[in-house]
């Protein structure tokens, strides 16, 4: 196998021909997430014939279209449910779901919850840009308090959804959140998530300069990306400060987004359990003699 060293070589291998240009705006974070995923896949050396991407509706959900692999671009919010079926039909396939905050935490919240609870073998990559970008900037369930959206013109009064802590509480095998700003931790995280059996989630905080940054006066693209740098904190630091820090320190970090690995453990995935069930039943049926007593009435 040829060793891939540059992004150009990586793109040549993983991108689908004929789908360019992308739909993404300048300064968008989605392409970066795609690139990180490619690096993770490359490091794992996965067979792309056996890797299937599923997505719903929204900007992030267009990502599978650009990947040279099987892809199911489904209906809004339902990608995880579709992927559950794909995996059930062929548990040998690796399932990766690209989804957004609206798609996953909004309309698709229930599918997300139950896939995490069942520990269905799949990796969900949720790209959170705090906004419904594709439809022009409406309020998302992850939108920070007081942020502006076309449907929250006077500032958001709803508390935002913390999807990582939700997944953690449901017992998902791997949960992590990163920003798109740094490549190394996210690539490792995606790699770890993909390697897991059971349900794994990697949430990316990603800028949407067009629909979110512009309205919320986060400045130009460079400043917008810097905003993520200034408003995130490693989860270890966050927890230490919130537990043992001074009031002043707590005040400084309390509104920041903790990033890092939220959960990493090994519980049996759904299909592992299901296989055991099937084997137990089939063994029983094979041993059982065929009933021959058939009363035929004419």
């Amino acid at each position: 196998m040829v060793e891939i060293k540059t992004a150009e070589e990586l793109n040549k291998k993983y991108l689908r021909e004929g789908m360019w240009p992308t739909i993404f705006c300048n300064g968008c974070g989605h392409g970066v997430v795609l690139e990180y995923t490619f690096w993770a896949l490359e490091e794992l050396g996965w067979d792309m014939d056996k890797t299937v991407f599923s997505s719903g509706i929204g900007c992030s959900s267009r990502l599978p279209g650009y990947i040279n692999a099987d892809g199911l671009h489904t209906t809004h919010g339902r990608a995880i449910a579709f992927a559950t079926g794909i995996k059930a039909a062929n548990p040998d396939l690796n399932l990766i779901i690209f989804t957004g905050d609206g798609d996953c935490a909004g309309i698709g919240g229930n599918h997300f919850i139950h896939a995490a609870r069942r520990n269905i073998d799949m990796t969900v990559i949720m790209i959170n840009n705090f906004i419904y970008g594709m439809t022009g900037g409406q309020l998302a369930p992850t939108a920070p308090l007081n942020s502006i959206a076309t449907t929250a013109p006077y500032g958001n009064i709803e508390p935002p959804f913390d999807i990582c802590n939700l997944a953690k509480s449901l017992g998902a095998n791997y949960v992590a959140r990163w920003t798109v700003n740094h490549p190394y931790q996210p690539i490792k995280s995606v790699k770890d998530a993909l390697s897991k059996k059971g349900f794994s989630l990697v949430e990316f905080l990603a800028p949407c300069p067009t629909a979110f940054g512009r309205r919320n006066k986060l400045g130009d693209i460079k400043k917008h990306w810097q905003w993520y740098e200034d408003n995130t904190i490693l989860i270890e630091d966050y927890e230490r400060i919130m537990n043992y820090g001074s009031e002043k320190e707590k005040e400084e970090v309390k509104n920041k987004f903790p990033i890092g690995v939220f959960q990493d453990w090994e519980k049996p995935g759904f299909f592992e359990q299901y296989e055991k069930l099937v084997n137990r039943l089939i063994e029983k049926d094979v041993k059982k003699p065929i009933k021959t007593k058939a009363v035929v009435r004419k």
Partner: protein
Amino acid sequence: MVIYKRNPNLIKKVLGNKIQFLLGDMACVYGGIISGVSFFGGYPITPASEVAEGMARLLPRVGGTYIQMEDEIGSIAAVIGAAWGGSKSMTATSGPGFSLMMENYGYAVMTETPCVIVNVQRTGPSTGQPTLGAQGDMMQARWGTHGDLEAIALAPSTVQECLDFTIEAFNLSEKYRNPACVMTDGEIGHLRERIVIPDENELELIDRVEAKIDKNKYVPFTNSQTRKNCKIPDFATFGTGYRTYVTGLTHNEKGFPATDKQKDHERLVKRITSKISDDAEKLVSVEELNLDDSDVVFVTYGASARPAESAMDIARKKGLKVGLLRLKIVWPFPEKIITKLAKDVNKIIVPEMNLGQIYHPIKEAACGNCEVISAPKIGGEMHLPIELLKYLGGEI
């Protein structure tokens, strides 16, 4: 993990005796398992829950996967996903659940995904009468999802037909790469009757045509590349290396989004509708009783055909020339049969357990050649034969 492979001996063992006294819903389970269903995604709903329960009991025993999903939207989604993963897959529901499935039903049409929906119909609007049968979704199966499509829907009148039509629904669905609906109802679903399980050698099972051509030459959403004059594309199961992109957006022949292209949309939607409508005459499946000499004919389907047949028998005994045309496949609609019938008879009576749904296409097809009367019965009870006799006029 091992991928499901249909095992006739195991199926036979799991289903048991050839002749059984069985619940209608359970017969749908048997039909699915005989067809080789390997994925069922369901959600409890009266009067269809017995299908999910039966699948939960039997499907793992033949090596298939049963998952109770979080709702009906998830159920149909998983069913469609499973089809792309290579399964024959099905779900079962009733009115409200069928309403919830509508968006993804359209997705299955647009992406040409074979799958089967058993709809044990009840009435509405809304929650209606959950425990009672009705034929509330006959039009929803045809027009419930947005956009242009052709529906495939079968309506069993007996428990045996629940089994047979589920097999047939799988065959049509696999053949045309379109979802197929088994439009049973609470009456037939909760009825127990004698059934005969077909032997393996009597079965005719159709599987989707898998893509086998060179991966570089494969075009996923166009006329078949291996069959002549066939508008149904060969199916590239996920994981077989074809790397297909499947989207509910208007797509070109390669499967790439072409949302702002009028020609691509027209070509796509005309192909996915005409692949079925071109074969409409082949898809006619009706039962004709006493049509040779009849002046008045009941045209009906599903549970309503049973009291209609009794009414016909009573009327015949009294010397009235009454016949029955029972639609086994309701969609595609057997338009030509009805048009011809309307020319031969004076009156068509359409008994339905709704306020008149299939009455409308019948009236349209009758084209004014004869009188068409709707004979509705709602409220969760079947027609009494005597109620139908009233529609025959003053003589009885």
